């Protein structure tokens, strides 16, 4: 299916491509499919292409002189992209400890929502989440697929210091803080896995289009995984799933 795309010059050296204003997985597949097609097309002077929910930012290393020519070329590439209905993806299994020690806001959510803590935890780890893109902080995954029953507004005043690995809910989204940071989401657990490895060639394990599933672990398992990570012995479990 072809979407109605709009192209506009964003800066001297970049073009923004936008899909209709909505968040769906079908559209994400089209965004990523076009992105990969462009990356494989040997476009002259291309530096990088970044994606968000419904947009691509194409960055060149030279100033764009004739926008129309570039847009014409991009649009021709959009038309010539292979259609992929359901691409293969990786499913990553991420351990989360939902114990009270980490779940600073679980009681508040439980009281507001009139759902038991265990019900909230179950709804959170039962879902399969889609990675739409990485942004906000190095290694922060924008995940789609939170159960509607868990939607919870952002805090009016953010916390100054959220712990590394905090698993949180903000509005209609859930995510993991890859590092210590200020933040306004409500915290329901903590994951020991490293979301951003500074010294790796590819610092993030997950790619846009991948899936994430959480599984509950005890506090003791959380500590055990942390020490395995410290000694380099821990591997995140994953499987490749054909579309």
């Amino acid at each position, binding site marked *: 299916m072809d979407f109605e795309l709009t192209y506009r010059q*964003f800066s001297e050296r970049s073009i923004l491509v936008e899909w209709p*204003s909505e968040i769906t997985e079908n559209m994400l597949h089209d965004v990523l499919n076009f992105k990969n097609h462009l990356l494989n097309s040997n476009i002259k002077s291309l530096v*990088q292409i*970044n994606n968000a*929910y419904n947009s691509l930012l194409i960055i060149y290393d030279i100033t764009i002189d004739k926008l129309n020519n570039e847009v014409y070329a991009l649009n021709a590439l959009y038309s010539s992209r292979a259609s992929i209905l359901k691409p293969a993806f990786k499913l990553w299994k991420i351990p989360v400890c939902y114990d009270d020690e980490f779940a600073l806001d679980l009681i508040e959510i439980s009281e507001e929502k009139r759902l038991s803590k265990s019900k909230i935890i179950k709804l959170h780890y039962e879902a399969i989440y889609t990675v739409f893109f990485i942004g*906000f902080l*190095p290694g922060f995954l924008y995940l789609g697929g939170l159960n509607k029953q868990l939607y919870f507004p952002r805090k009016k005043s953010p916390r100054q210091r959220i712990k590394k690995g905090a698993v949180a809910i903000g509005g209609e989204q859930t995510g993991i803080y*890859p590092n210590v940071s200020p933040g306004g989401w409500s915290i329901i657990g903590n994951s020991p896995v490293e979301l951003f490895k*500074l010294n790796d060639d590819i610092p993030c394990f997950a790619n846009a289009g991948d899936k994430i599933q959480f599984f509950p672990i005890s506090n003791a398992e959380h500590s055990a995984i942390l020490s395995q990570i410290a000694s380099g012995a821990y591997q995140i479990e994953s499987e490749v799933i054909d579309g």
Partner: protein
Amino acid sequence: MVEVLKAGLFDTIQDFGRIGFQEFGVPFSGVMDENSASLANSIIGNDQNAAVIECTVIGLQLKFHAHTLICITGAQMNPNLNGLPIKNNTAISVRPNDILGFGRLEYGCRSYISVSNGFLTEEIMASRSMYQGITSRFKLQKGDLLPISKEEKDKTATFSSIKINKNHFQSQDIEVFKGPEFDKLNLKQQKLLCEQQFTISKDSNRMAYLFDECFDNALHPIITSLVLPGTVQLTPSGQLIVLMRDCQTTGGYPRVFQLTEKAMNMMSQKFFGGKVRFKCIK
């Protein structure tokens, strides 16, 4: 080696930043005023992208432990070598035990210090630019020892100096392209946004410049999309946010402008209380 004897207000090592790591959420970083930093490098024969020190408002004090050439560009902070005044935009030969200091800020906001072949501090993701969470330090501190390349003898300076265009520091006009959501403002607001004068707030930093004035608007947040250094966001409460080099890679506020590259450099030399006006081009 170059030793930091005293830190200034906010000094960092910067080159042209990290390019190609934004899909992992890594900011670009890099020198705020590329124009001045390139000049500092060019005058002493460096690659333009060699790592320099960026000082903000109040300069630092450095002691050299090797022969090298230096050049200071950007903001005029009345630099001195061993207490004797030296010029900006000039190649200067320094020797072991020489001490570089700075005085009062005359104009601009950020000064650049280049040394022969650049500062050789840690390189992470193809850049030496300091950023919290990426490099082990996010600013220079007293006692830091910064590696530089070894020069056996005195480096001879040419003693020539370059005249710079002061307009770079003084002009209030900030050239911008219309941002993706500019057209969602009504015509009156569009006109006003390009006419109003804005005052730079004291909360401005390498991540973003903010203004004292608010701009009333009824724009709705957008689905989180992509931003670049130079993107101007407008929040529902009327705050304009000019994203700078250390900004995030994505954002959900409407994007009303995009600064030109030249305007980014000029904006970086604006100090708290400075006035700017957006000039829409094309």
